[in-house]
């Protein structure tokens, strides 16, 4: 295009712009109408900052032949008028229109102050000194209002989805979309696999027992190493004390039982019984966080804790017996099956007593403070130190009321070839065991409504 044609094209464009400006703002002189028309774009622009507004104001001031206060006022009014027209015709949000009005008012104030101080506001490169601080505050306010509006709009849409029971789409960043997709797929796989499982009524209860026992084993593993070692050392220490006491008074055999093995059996069984009883009862209380799962009851947590500690003695007994035998300290059991059976029965009565204690502790929390007293009282009547046949006949009744004495004497009868307990009665023991199980079972149902999950 030749330079002459360019000039003609520019003249035509200017003429068209003037014509449309006059049509839009017929009451304004053409130069102010043009300013107003150019300001219309500010109301719908993509940029939020005030630089565009400042540039338009300064450019308009420069285009005036002289800059009296009145003329400057006309320029500002033309810009304001253009913004309002832009707002009316555009689809600008009300917060954005308000931002533009406030930006213009602020710019007018700053420019006018400088102009009245004879600062050359029309010079190229002019920028009011407080411009950034003043418009920065406006912009942050605008962004806050917009976030509130968007939040309210989001809540409205969310509520709409909620009321029609639909999933509300939460937007995630592009980089997390892959993770979201992967998680969705994983959950679908989990759901599909779960749907194929048996839904027999017994299943959840069995699952809960299995889950609890595994969890308790994991906790036992997480116990301090010293605590685990003590389950081995404890019986050994007690055995040492008992043996020393008997040796001190010159006794090397008790009713044909060698003292070290007699003491070991008594000590290890007592430790097992004590641990099982008190771990079970404690499990009713200190596993309350697990009672937040519907399938888990206080009795389940108590018994599973007791069972896990009980099972650890399946290692403790062989290690002690075989280790002691290897150094010629202990004799081997005469009847292994009988020994295992009576150890298991002693463990069972430990679980039953622990359950009863756990129920009492739920209803009467102070009961827990009596733990040491109860423990020492039971130790005396547990047959750990002696068998009833060592006592005069008149005194035997003081310890034979206890099923623990019967269990330990029957255990020693199975262990030692040359000892048979005349006083121990399996029927008496099993009657106690049955009664304790019934009391524990009834008790755990009664206390459930009093046991709050943690």
């Amino acid at each position, binding site marked *: 295009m030749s330079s002459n044609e360019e000039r003609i094209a520019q003249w035509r464009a200017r003429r068209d712009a003037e014509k449309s400006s006059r049509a839009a703002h017929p009451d304004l002189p053409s130069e102010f109408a043009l300013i107003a028309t150019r300001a219309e774009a500010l109301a719908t622009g993509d940029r939020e900052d005030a630089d565009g507004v400042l540039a338009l104001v300064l450019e308009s001031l420069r285009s005036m032949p002289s800059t009296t206060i009145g003329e400057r006022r006309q320029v500002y009014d033309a810009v304001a008028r253009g913004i309002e027209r832009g707002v009316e015709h555009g689809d600008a949000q009300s917060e954005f229109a308000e931002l533009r009005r406030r930006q213009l008012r602020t710019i007018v104030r700053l420019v006018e102050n400088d102009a009245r101080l004879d600062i050359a506001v029309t010079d190229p490169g002019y920028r009011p000194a407080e411009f950034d601080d003043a418009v920065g505050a406006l912009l942050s306010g605008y962004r806050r209002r917009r976030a509130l509006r968007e939040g309210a709009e989001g*809540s409205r849409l969310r*509520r709409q989805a*909620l*009321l029609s*029971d639909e*999933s*509300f*789409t*939460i*937007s995630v*960043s592009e980089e*997390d979309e892959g*993770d*979201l997709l*992967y*998680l*969705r797929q*994983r*959950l679908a*796989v*989990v759901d599909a*696999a*779960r749907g194929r*499982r048996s839904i027999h009524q017994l*299943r*959840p209860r069995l*699952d*809960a027992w299995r*889950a*609890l026992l*595994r*969890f308790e084993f*994991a*906790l036992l593993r*997480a*116990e301090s190493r010293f605590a685990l070692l003590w389950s081995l050392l404890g019986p050994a220490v007690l055995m040492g004390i008992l043996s020393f006491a008997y040796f001190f008074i010159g006794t090397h055999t008790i009713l044909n039982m060698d003292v070290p093995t007699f003491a070991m059996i008594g000590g290890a069984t007592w430790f097992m019984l004590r641990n099982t009883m*008190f*771990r079970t*009862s*404690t499990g009713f*209380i*200190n596993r*309350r*966080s697990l*009672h*937040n*799962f*519907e*399938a*888990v009851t206080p009795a389940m947590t108590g018994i599973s804790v007791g069972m896990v500690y009980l099972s650890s003695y399946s290692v403790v007994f062989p290690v002690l017996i075989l280790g002691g035998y290897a150094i010629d300290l202990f004799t081997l059991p005469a009847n292994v099956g009988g020994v295992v059976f009576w150890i298991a029965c002693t463990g069972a009565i430990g679980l039953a007593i622990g359950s009863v204690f756990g129920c009492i502790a739920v209803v009467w*929390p102070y009961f*827990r403070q009596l*733990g*040491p007293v109860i423990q020492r009282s039971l130790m005396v009547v547990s047959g750990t130190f002696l068998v009833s046949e060592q006592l005069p006949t008149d005194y035997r009744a003081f310890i034979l009321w206890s099923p623990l004495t019967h269990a330990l004497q029957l255990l020693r009868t199975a262990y030692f070839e040359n000892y048979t307990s005349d006083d121990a009665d399996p029927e008496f023991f099993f009657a106690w065991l049955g009664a304790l199980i019934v009391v524990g079972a009834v008790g755990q149902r009664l206390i*459930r*409504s009093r*046991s*709050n*999950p*943690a």
Partner: protein
Amino acid sequence: MIDFFSVSDRNSVFGRSIDLFENVDFHLPRGRYALLARSPEQRRLVLDVLAGLRPPRAGHVSISGSISWPIGRSSVVRGRATGYDFITFVSELYGVDADQAGDIVTLLVSRPDYIDQPIDTWPPYVRQEFNFALALVPEFDIYVVDAPMPYEETRFTRLWQALFEERLVGKTLILSSYRPKQLLDYCAKGLVYEGGQLFIDHDLESCIERYPARPAREEIGLGNADSGQYTELDF
């Protein structure tokens, strides 16, 4: 659905015995409910009975379908077990694959490096994320949430909210939270506990005004409402 049949119950709040329910017959149909009460401690006790965690002293509570644990309750995730132990426990309890559950949780939480360490050593926000993340794995018919749901602008929150929204479709939600906005975002109706009775209020906004939610003592770190202690009988 949850049904109460002639339910009466007593419990204690801060050592004071209260009648929680008095011969209540109540039917809770499927829907999304904001649990509201005069005090947050009452909300917790009511939630325990609603979720079948504690049977009432008299009467019967019937729950149709599977129900979650009180999601977000801080006492649920704690102890010496590791995160993986806990994932295995929950997976076995609800019959889901533990490896899959572990994958989902580790991908979701902000700090998966903590999961193989004992829970007691985790910072509170890691426990809370773990608690909410794990709740996504088994699908429940009734979701019980007993804490403010994740709301900070983080990757975890966005992903969790997106998945939880999908989980909730067609399900029941009982939300006990002290954040009114969450109650309005997630719940359609109010489930109000007042004077030993439960009722449903369809005007949730006015409900929230009448029963302004506030955090329980436990939620602001002042201990548990009931008198449970953790001393051991053993020594």
